């Protein structure tokens, strides 16, 4: 039986967003979301309230297409909702919470093709789409994580696989040489991991950027035109939500809205002041901290001179951050040649004239590309949503262990849930194979005849 898959079908912008759901469980999921037994009539639009807990998330126009008379050849429902990033993001999360799975890149079209709804010529485009996701998928996911998150993931992987090994080794220990695992130990381990998972789920939740804003650090030398860029972004947009100085006199935070998305710009002023003491490199450290906290880095460079040693060092630091980064060439004449920057081709770059405003639109598009970049013909925020969903499923499995511990269900049951949790987390932490678990067992315990 196929999964029921969901994704956003329309791009960013516009007043109405279309979310699509396809698969055998469409009717059940829709009726659960609208809190009514599904009286869905094929090819009729129905206005329904979509519930998120006790609240109504939005009123949506739902159109139902019955298999095989749909785009994919399966049961399909389309939700037309208000195009607020929060509403569309939350709706996708709700669908996943009710058992749908975030569609993989090209998956709707893939189903359409396999069900004979698409011809060979169209299929070629589909293959390109899937292939483009193949290489990018894992890297994209990993790149969007900062150091703290990947440390959390490592911790989750380590603790879960070691707990599984602890349980498995006792299932194999026929001579009862080992002291049994105490319920308390299992409980503590599970709770520890659950804490990490919940924290991660929060950061992955699609609503996060929308609610909290996208943290963007502007870094670069003082004379590179950082401040003018900040002013240009803020000034031209005239959409300042608040304007306050940062907690330290060296950072300025501006909150603004670009393309309907909340952005928190952090300007790390004052590299030069402290650079008087080169050994300390306080300025460098400060921009480093700002970058660590950021979701996005804007590296501003003056296009009319070659890079200073400080800038080169800063660039290395940026590359090490492994984050979404945009290189901003600040210049008045956009036709001029930019100086060389190593590995610049790995990141998007844009030339901007703060005076004329040229290039600013493109920069804004790049800034909000966090939402639009992962957008494909049939999917939005794929990596984020899929990760969120994975965390949710893993959480359910781990909570099941806690419940089953109470009835003393036994190691083979706990192991079953742990293995499933690990499988759900696979895209985030990498695969943990039975052989990996055996590896832990043999390296930690003296087993075997």
């Amino acid at each position: 039986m196929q999964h029921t898959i969901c994704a956003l079908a329309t791009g960013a912008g516009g007043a109405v967003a279309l979310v699509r759901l396809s698969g055998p469980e469409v009717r059940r999921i829709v009726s659960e979301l609208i809190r009514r037994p599904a009286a869905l009539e094929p090819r009729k639009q129905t206005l329904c309230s979509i519930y998120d807990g006790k609240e109504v998330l939005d009123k949506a126009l739902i159109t139902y297409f019955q298999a095989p008379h749909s785009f994919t050849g399966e049961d399909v429902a389309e939700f037309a909702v208000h195009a607020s990033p929060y509403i569309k993001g939350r709706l996708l999360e709700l669908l996943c919470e009710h058992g749908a799975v975030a569609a993989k890149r090209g998956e709707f079209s893939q189903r359409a093709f396999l069900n004979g709804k698409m011809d060979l010529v169209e299929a070629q485009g589909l293959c390109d789409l899937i292939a483009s996701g193949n290489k990018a998928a894992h890297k994209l996911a990993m790149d969007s994580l900062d150091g703290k998150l990947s440390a959390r993931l490592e911790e989750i992987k380590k603790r879960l696989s070691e707990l599984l090994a602890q349980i498995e080794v006792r299932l194999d220990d026929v001579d009862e040489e080992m002291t049994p695992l105490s319920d308390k130990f299992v409980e503590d381990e599970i709770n520890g991991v659950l804490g990490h998972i919940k924290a991660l789920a929060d950061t992955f939740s699609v609503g996060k950027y929308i609610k909290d804003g996208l943290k963007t650090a502007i870094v670069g030398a003082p004379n590179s035109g950082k401040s003018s860029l900040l002013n240009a972004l803020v000034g031209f947009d005239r959409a300042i939500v608040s304007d306050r100085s940062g907690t330290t006199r060296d950072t300025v935070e501006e909150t603004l809205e670009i393309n309907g998305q909340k952005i928190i710009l952090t300007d790390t002023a004052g590299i030069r002041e402290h650079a008087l003491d080169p050994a300390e490199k306080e300025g460098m450290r400060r921009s480093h901290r700002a970058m660590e906290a950021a979701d996005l880095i804007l590296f501003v460079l003056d296009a009319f001179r070659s890079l200073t040693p400080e800038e080169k060092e800063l660039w290395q630091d940026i590359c090490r951050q492994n984050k979404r980064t945009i290189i901003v060439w600040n210049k008045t004449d956009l036709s001029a040649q930019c100086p060389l920057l190593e590995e610049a081709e790995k990141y998007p770059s844009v030339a901007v004239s703060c005076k004329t405003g040229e290039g600013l639109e493109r920069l804004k598009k790049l800034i909000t590309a966090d939402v639009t970049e992962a957008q494909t013909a049939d999917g939005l925020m794929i990596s984020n949503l899929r990760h969120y969903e994975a965390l949710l499923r893993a959480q359910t499995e781990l909570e099941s262990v806690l419940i089953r511990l109470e009835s003393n269900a036994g190691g083979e049951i706990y192991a079953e849930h742990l293995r499933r949790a690990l499988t759900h987390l696979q895209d985030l932490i990498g695969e943990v194979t039975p052989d990996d678990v055996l590896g832990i067992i043999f390296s930690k315990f003296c087993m075997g005849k």
Partner: protein
Amino acid sequence: MFVCEDNYDVIVIGGGHAGCEAALAAAKLGAKTLLLTQSLDTIAQMSCNPSIGGIAKGQIVREIDALGGAMGRVTDHAALHYHMLNTGKGPAVHSPRVQCDKKVYQFTFKHFLELQPNLDIMQDEAVKISVSDRAVDGVLTLRNTFYHAKTVILTTGTFLAGTIHIGTEMFRGGRYNDMPSDGLAKNLRDDLKLNILRFKTGTPMRINARGLDYSKFRLQPSDNPLQPISHFTNAKEQSKRTFLSCYITRTTLETDKILRENFQRSAMYSGHIHGLGPRYCPSVEDKIKKFPEVTSHPLFLEPEGFNTEEYYIQGFSTSMPEDVQRALIKSVPGMENASITRPGYAIEYDFSDPRDLFPSLESKRIPGLFMAGQINGTTGYEEAGGQGLMAGINAALKVQGKEPFVLRRDEAYIGVLIDDLINKGVNEPYRMFTSRAEYRILLRNDNADLRLMPYAFKLGMLDEKYKAPFEKYQALCQKLIEKPALSADEDETELFPWTAEKARTHADIYHKYAGYYERNKKDAEKLAEMDSIKIPEGFDPSAVRGLLFESAQKLASVKPQTLGQAGRIPGVTPADLQLLAVHIERFRRLKNAKAAR
């Protein structure tokens, strides 16, 4: 050269646990079969421990038995001690283990083979597999006899280019006191160009029990009541037999000291052995080296038979020199006055990369050549027997022009075993563990009959007389699952060898695992769906644009037959599978379009 006038459907090379099952199964399915073995007196020999079963292995024996193999029945016949393992844990990990009289075991098996219609047995050593038109056509032996064959099953155990090590002493052998198969090893490597690799394994010393101080051992009596390992053995009758006990003792600080002082003299640590050994079956010197904080290791004394004083000492596997082995024995409480009858040793041997096999265990390189057991990189009698049975069945089916018989991962440990081997390959001798089976809750020793007998009846691997009782048992289980309150005081006539009590137990276990059962079944259905998407003949995965480079390479080397199999190759991503699915459909449509034109 004498060319034998008989034309065989199947020739099995090797008479170990894989070869014996293979020969019996092929012959049972009507294939004219020849079993070639170096020595008839060592057929089905238990070269290592005198026991069958164990964790996960016991489940495999039950599966072999349910599929009509002989291992379970021979074991019950030769049993000298029964022990159901893990009874304190959930039923999914209960595993039967049976100590056997070694000699009774091998001669019972030999007798089974002799009685089997369609099966010839010949004492001779195969030295060359003849291939013409890229397919197997016969076998040449050391006596220069040529046998025609449509298929050949290789079950060479540790014999291929075998080398034995005791300390720094090193000599050629396929097993202690047996010749290695050097001719065949050369043939496989140089002529057939199989991808040959090398593994190492070992066995502990045997001792004479005369002079043992049993007061220093912990007694482990045989289970009472006992549970036969074969579905077809009458438990009541079996219980009337006499059984022996096993004994447990431990290594001491003195053992530790002796090992430490002599590390450099061990074959393993002196650099004489190059083959990779198993992590889970470490020699005692390995244990000391890797776990210096553990100062005492358990040792199990297992009787080698009813009519012998020899004991096998589980836990004392070693490749130390003989003098060190003698000192080791004396360092163990209760064994101070015992003497070694056969020293422990390590052995290195050739095996062939199992990724070159189809799920039927037929070679992708040489049509008609099947392989089972240690030649595929596994270890253990049970793992060998399971593969032997499947290779025997599939060789016979091939000769009869029928579809291969393949077990899925949710159907049997044998399915997990073969699927792992052919998709993941091996980097140490592969032993089964319950943790390798993601459907562990479905794959239990208590339901092997329900899982596999329907296939066995269909194939013709089981006597028809069991069909009616089995179906009655199936129905009873179903009834008790649906109505747990029903009393099981069922009419037991015509139910033998099954009992109403067993059905009741089955229903109870089902209810214990109820939710998990359903979930696993659902997953299994998805798996089956993926496995039902065949990668068509002529489809070239390397021509699929957009696959990750590594995936394309792996797909090209493993050549999976279904989309499901492709997904189980390590490193193949979901996006790769999406691409494959689309391209398979595309390939199918283009082919249809061409056919229509």
